[in-house]
């Protein structure tokens, strides 16, 4: 089989940050390639390079070459790639809700009746040839081997049909040879996913190559011919799907080597860490309605003074846990703080009870970009705990003390080494790492008993990373505060937490001591454990 698409030594760095290096593999006609890897392993960057997305050009292009049908290509825009015969189905639906299936499949590629007006004004003044459009869309749907009503409106469709419409849209291009599917089954029910997989097999039999990106390793193993595993921007392995097990792939994804880092303590001691300490926070039956990070049923408890880690792949729900408990997303369940039940759904109540949260969405939730550092740090403490306020006229008015706020800000600037021109500098002008430090300072200013830290090192440089992690440790040891850290980076969790819970599909898949071998984490993250223990899960 000749390769229709080959990647040759693809590399890419963003602002000196290497995200891909030396990735090469081939895709042959009619072949289904499964592309797997953790978040940040470089899957989406690779696809962006293939489609020549603007952000790739804007950040200085890429290294290596892409061969399409045997000759090197460099597409200028995504539309060039589409014209060449490469289709892409994105994770989010890219459909017009008020249009029918046919209209969506043929969006901007409608069949037209030509007329005199066409020449005078533009081709866009031509009438649509509805009959021909219906014909073309039927043909495309037929290729998928499913039944779709061509005249149904997208907004009235079940999710699965939307996904098929998207794929049909790519198939409808005249000479499509390759389709990239990014997490196509994430929103589907299992039966819908089953239908999708058989449609994809049908397509492959017709000679269309498919690159299939998924976190559902079971599907990968079932569907694909060949599996490419990426880790930290490098191709770790390429193996035939036949004969591979979910577990092998999972451990390839997270790294095979079991680094003990000189800590050979028995796992049990960590699992029973500080068993003499009282339980600070216990969570049962927690559900959180956070878009893209749904939590379905989570239970765990954390002891006083512990640093507890929560990990898992993106979209599995780990971020939903702190957002739900802190009242930022609609949530429910039993959460007890020092044994007393806590009111969910109110950020005020949570903060008042001594919880604090460093959000993963720094710029959106964490900061007032238009205000100074002093405001950002002191604001929550002022509003919740009436700090930095001077009562006037016997407490009738609460006057803001700008001087105290400034002092506090200066203190934290020194403590956390925030690089700035002064405590009044606009936070929007700080670098990502310094913004993160401001977020931490904001939480520390509240002196919380329990601190949620979500993705504290995402998108910041190495130096800042160290300071952030050290500060967290120090805060934990000095004030005996409980810290719950949520992170996508397993290594980071293992370096600071004693126990790490892994979230998969909105549930806690398992809790491991930080010394547990990496492949055990990998299995949990890929949900492989529950797939082998289906029975046990449903008793939940």
């Amino acid at each position, binding site marked *: 089989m000749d390769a229709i698409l080959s990647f040759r030594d693809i590399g890419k760095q963003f602002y000196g940050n290497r995200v891909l290096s030396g990735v090469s593999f081939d895709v042959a006609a009619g072949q289904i390639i499964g592309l797997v890897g953790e978040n940040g392993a470089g899957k989406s960057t690779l696809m962006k390079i293939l489609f020549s997305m603007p952000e790739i050009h804007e950040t200085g292009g890429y290294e290596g070459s892409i061969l399409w049908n045997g000759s090197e290509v460099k597409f200028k825009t995504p539309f060039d790639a589409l014209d060449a015969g490469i289709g892409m189905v994105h994770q989010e639906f890219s459909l*017009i809700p*008020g249009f029918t299936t046919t209209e969506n499949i043929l969006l*901007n590629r409608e069949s037209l009746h030509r007329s005199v007006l066409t020449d005078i004004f533009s*081709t866009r003044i*031509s*009438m*649509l040839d509805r009959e021909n459009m219906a014909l073309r869309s039927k043909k495309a749907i037929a290729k998928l081997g499913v039944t779709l009503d061509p005249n149904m409106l997208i907004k009235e469709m079940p999710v699965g049909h939307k996904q098929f419409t998207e794929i049909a849209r790519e198939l409808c291009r005249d000479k499509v040879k390759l389709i990239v599917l990014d997490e196509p089954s994430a929103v589907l029910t299992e039966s819908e996913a089953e239908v999708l997989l058989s449609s994809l097999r049908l397509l492959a039999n017709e000679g269309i190559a498919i690159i299939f990106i998924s976190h559902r390793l079971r599907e990968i193993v079932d569907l694909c011919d060949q599996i490419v595993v990426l880790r930290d921007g490098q191709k770790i392995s390429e193996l035939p799907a036949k004969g591979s097990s979910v577990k092998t792939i999972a451990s390839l994804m997270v790294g095979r080597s079991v680094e003990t880092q000189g800590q050979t303590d028995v796992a049990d001691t960590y699992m029973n860490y500080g068993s003499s300490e009282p339980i600070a926070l216990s969570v049962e039956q927690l559900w959180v309605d956070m878009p893209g990070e749904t939590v*379905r049923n989570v239970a765990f408890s954390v002891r006083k003074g512990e640093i507890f880690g929560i990990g898992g792949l993106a979209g599995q729900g780990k971020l939903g846990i702190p957002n739900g408990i802190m009242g930022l997303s609609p949530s429910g369940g039993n959460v007890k703080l020092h044994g007393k039940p806590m009111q969910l759904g109110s950020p005020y109540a949570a903060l008042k009870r001594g919880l604090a949260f460093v959000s993963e969405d720094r710029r959106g939730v964490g900061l007032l970009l238009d205000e100074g550092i002093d405001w950002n740090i002191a604001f929550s403490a002022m509003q919740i705990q009436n700090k930095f306020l001077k009562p006037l006229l016997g407490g009738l008015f609460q006057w803001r003390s700008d001087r105290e706020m400034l002092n506090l800000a200066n203190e934290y600037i020194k403590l956390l080494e925030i690089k700035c021109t002064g405590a009044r500098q606009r936070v929007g002008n700080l670098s990502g790492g310094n913004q993160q430090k401001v977020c931490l300072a904001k939480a520390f200013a509240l002196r919380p008993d329990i601190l949620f830290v979500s993705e504290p090192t995402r998108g910041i440089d190495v130096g800042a990373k160290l300071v952030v992690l050290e500060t967290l440790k120090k805060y934990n040891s000095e004030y005996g505060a409980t810290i719950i850290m949520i992170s996508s980076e397993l290594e980071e969790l293992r370096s600071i937490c004693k126990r790490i819970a892994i979230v998969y599909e909105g549930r806690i898949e398992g809790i491991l001591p930080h010394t547990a071998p990496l492949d055990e984490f990998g299995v949990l993250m890929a949900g492989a454990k529950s797939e082998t223990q289906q029975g046990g899960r449903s008793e939940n």
Partner: protein
Amino acid sequence: MKKLRLFLIENSVVITFIVLLAIAIPASKLPGQFLLQEILTRLGRSSFLVISLLLPIMAGMGLNFGMVLGAMAGQIGLIFISDWGVIGIPGLLLAMIISLPISVILGWLCGSIMNKAKGREMVTGYILAFFMNGVYMLFALYAMGIIIPVLNLELLLSRGFGLRNVIDLINVRQCLETFIPLKIAGVNIPVLNYLIIAAVGIFIVWFRKTKFGQDMRAAGQDRAVASAAGISVDRTRIFAIIISTVLAGFGQIIFLQNMGTINTTNSHEQTGLFAIASLLIGGASVTKASIPNALIGVILFHLLFLVAPMAGKNLVGSAMIGEYFRQFVSYGVIALALVLYEWKRVAQEDASRAMLRGGVAPDKGKVNTL
């Protein structure tokens, strides 16, 4: 039963106004023939303006408060033919041809500015109309007679430049209405007006079926998806506004030839308000409007317009209260439509977020064992 309820909810505005009129028309004690004559005339002169609002709504740009720009262009056309002394239907056609390039330029300007203020097209259009009014006054009160030569000195103020406050359109007055005379039971029917409105209706229907119309609908529903599919959303939106502006210009010409005079500086001011209020009273919303909405709206709005003062006098003893009530309705119905629209939008945002839940809340963490 459920269908009936849905029907009532969807047409609540229209039904409210019909009920209101059912009370007001008998109370006004105006003769039926008079009302019928007036409504037929007003339908003939105002519908075109209202129909000009349809395309921007389809393109997701809301109510085109910038249509006033088109009205200004139409007036400029009429001013020129009055100056040159071109009469009758050729005069009207010439006025339309003159207004065409002006409308296109103004529409392009309006569309480009609205593209810079995506998400607040309506308030931008509303302010733009005021701003252009200033520019128009500069043209009418200072440029005419100084920069632009005026042949017919009767149009000018005695100071030698600037247009008079009122321009008499004697040369083209009601030439459409009288072109095909038809009188049924003592009521004059402006046949040609209706033919023109039918033509623009057919144009709108046809346009919706073209590629352009399809692109406009796509851009109106989801800008991001449309532009990802390669549709140049910005250009499409500008085009929608240009067509709307051109039609508004023609509409204003038809409107003013019936009225017979131009108030140089403020004939266009109420155009937008009345057209938009009519459309909304006809049951349209900020995101959805049709030709029946426009026609029903014109009839209901103008009936209210006609009977309100007399009904007010007979019901509460003051014609002014009826008049003020009518004015309140013009503004109030727009306020109501905007509130309903934003309300729905906020609710929809919540609903679309809820859709991402993946059914969490109901089963509270029960495992999906499918």
